[in-house]
C-alpha cells in the first residue's frame, strides 16, 4: 500500500447490508471460510474501497486487457494447518491453487509469484520440503515461479509458514467463461469425488484426528481443463474449483451471479465411501467440504456427454459425473433431490465449517 493513502476507519453507516459487519467488530474465523461471512467482507469492505469493473465480477481471476493482450490474474493465500497432510503440503496447494484459479477463468497459466511469511524458529528442513514441492508442482503444471518475497515475523506470530501466490496467464481466444454466464438448461458436471481435501486435513487436525486412507486431491487442473475446452469450446459457460465452502458454496455463488436456479441429484454426487464415513463421524456434509483438485463445469446440454467422456479419459477426471442442471425456477438457490425423493434447499455456508483448510 502506498504511503499517501492513509487508512480511515470504515464508515458503517453507509453500508447497505441490513446486517452490518459491526455485528462482529473484529475479524472472526468465519471470515476466512469461503462462505457468506467472507463474501460480506469482500462486498462491504474491499469492493467499495477498490471499486473497478474487473473486480466486480468476483470471479476466481480478474480478466484484464494489457497493451492489447487479454490476460487473467489471480492471487491466493495459504494458511493451511497442519502444513503437511496426507496427499500434500502447503507448497503444492499454493502453486496448484493459483494455477487452477487461472485455468477456470479460461486462461493458460504461465507465471507465478510466491510470497512467504515465515515464523522465527521455523525449521529450514520443513521450508526446504515445502519449496521443493512447489518447484515440482510448478514444473508439473508447466508454469514458472518468476518472482517472490520472504518476510520473517517473531516467534508466536506466524504459525510456521504462510504462502501467497499470484499468477498471470493469457486468456484463450474465443473462450468466455465466468460465474455470471451459466444459462438455464446447462448441464452441471463435476470432475471427480468431493470432500477429499477437507477430510484429509481433518484426519490430522488436532482434537479431531482419525486414521484413514483419505488423501488430499490437490492437483493442477490446467491440463484437464485445456482438453475440455479443446473439445467443447464455447459450449463451456462456467468453470469453478470448489475450494473452501465446498461444492455447495460454489454452486450457490454461481446461481447468484448468473441469477438462475441450480438443481442437483444427491444420489449422483461422487463421494468416496471413507470420505462419507469421516463426514458421518464428524457430523459434516460432503457438499460443504473443501476440494483442491476438482472442477465444476456448466456446459450447454448438447455438449455434456462429450465433456464427460473427455473428463473420464483423463487421470484427474476418472470419477467425473453429471450431477444436475440449471433452471429458471427458484432463482439464486441450490436445491437437491434427496435419496428419499424429497427436495431440500442447500444454502451457502455461513462461516467456518472447517477452519484453516487451505
Amino acid at each position, binding site marked *: 500500500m502506498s504511503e499517501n493513502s492513509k487508512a480511515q476507519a470504515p464508515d458503517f453507516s453507509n453500508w447497505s447490508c441490513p446486517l452490518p459487519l459491526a455485528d462482529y467488530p473484529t475479524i472472526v474465523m468465519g471470515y476466512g471460510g469461503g462462505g457468506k461471512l467472507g463474501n460480506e467482507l469482500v462486498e462491504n469492505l474491499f469492493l467499495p474501497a477498490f471499486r473497478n469493473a474487473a473486480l466486480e465480477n468476483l470471479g476466481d481471476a480478474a480478466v484484464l486487457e494489457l497493451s492489447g493482450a487479454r490476460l487473467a490474474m489471480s492471487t491466493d493465500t495459504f494458511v493451511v494447518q497442519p502444513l503437511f497432510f496426507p496427499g500434500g503440503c502447503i507448497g503444492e496447494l499454493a502453486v496448484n491453487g493459483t494455477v487452477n484459479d487461472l485455468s477456470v477463468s479460461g486462461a493458460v497459466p504461465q507465471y507465478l509469484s510466491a510470497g512467504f511469511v515465515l515464523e522465527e524458529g521455523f525449521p529450514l528442513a520443513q521450508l526446504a520440503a515445502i519449496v521443493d514441492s512447489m518447484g515440482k508442482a510448478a514444473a508439473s503444471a508447466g508454469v514458472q515461479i518468476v518472482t517472490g518475497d520472504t518476510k520473517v515475523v517473531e516467534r508466536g506470530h506466524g504459525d510456521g509458514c504462510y504462502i501467497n501466490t499470484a499468477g498471470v496467464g493469457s486468456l484463450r481466444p474465443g473462450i468466455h467463461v465466468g460465474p455470471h454466464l451459466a444459462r438455464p438448461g446447462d448441464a452441471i458436471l463435476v470432475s471427480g469425488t468431493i470432500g477429499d481435501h477437507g477430510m484429509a486435513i481433518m484426519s490430522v487436525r488436532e482434537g479431531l484426528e482419525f486414521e484413514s486412507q483419505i488423501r488430499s486431491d490437490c492437483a493442477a487442473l490446467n491440463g484437464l481443463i485445456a482438453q475440455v475446452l479443446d473439445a467443447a469450446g464455447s459450449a463451456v459457460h462456467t468453470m469453478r474449483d470448489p475450494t473452501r465452502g465446498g461444492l455447495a458454496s460454489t454452486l450457490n455463488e454461481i446461481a447468484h451471479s448468473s441469477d438462475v436456479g441450480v438443481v442437483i441429484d444427491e444420489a449422483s454426487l461422487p463421494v468416496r465411501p471413507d470420505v462419507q464415513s469421516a463426514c458421518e463421524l*464428524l457430523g459434516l456434509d460432503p457438499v460443504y467440504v473443501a476440494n483442491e483438485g476438482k472442477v465444476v463445469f456448466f456446459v450447454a446440454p448438447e455438449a455434456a456427454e462429450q465433456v464427460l467422456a473427455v473428463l473420464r479419459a483423463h487421470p484427474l477426471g476418472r470419477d467425473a459425473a453429471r450431477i444436475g442442471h440449471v433452471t429458471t425456477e427458484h432463482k439464486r438457490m441450490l436445491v437437491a433431490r434427496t435419496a428419499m425423493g424429497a427436495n431440500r434447499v442447500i444454502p451457502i455456508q455461513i462461516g467456518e465449517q472447517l477452519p484453516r483448510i487451505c
Partner: protein
Amino acid sequence: MDMCLAIPGKVEEINTEGGLRIGRVNFGGVVKNVCLDYVPDVVVGDYTIVHVGFALSKIDEETALQTLDDFRQMGMLDQELEGEEAAFARAAAAPQSPCPDGSCSSK
C-alpha cells in the same frame, strides 16, 4: 457434531490405555480410538454404536438383518395382492359376452 450423533463401527482391536479399555473401531474406512468401558461384552469383530468417543451399545447383527428384511418385505406383499385383486375386479366388471368362447358375433 450433535448430541445424539452415534454411528455404527466395527471393533478391530482392543487395548488398555490410561486404565481404560480402548478399541480401534472402523467406521466404514475411518478408524478412531473408542472407549469400550461401557460395553464390557463387546469383542473384536463386533459392531457397536459410538457417541463422542464412547461405545454405548453392541449392535445385535441378527436383529439388524432381520429388521432390514422386515422393512424390505413391507408393502411388497400388498403390491402382489393388489395386482391379483384388481385384475379380478376388472374382469368381474367387464361386460359379459353371451358366447364366452367367441363363437357368436359380439354385436
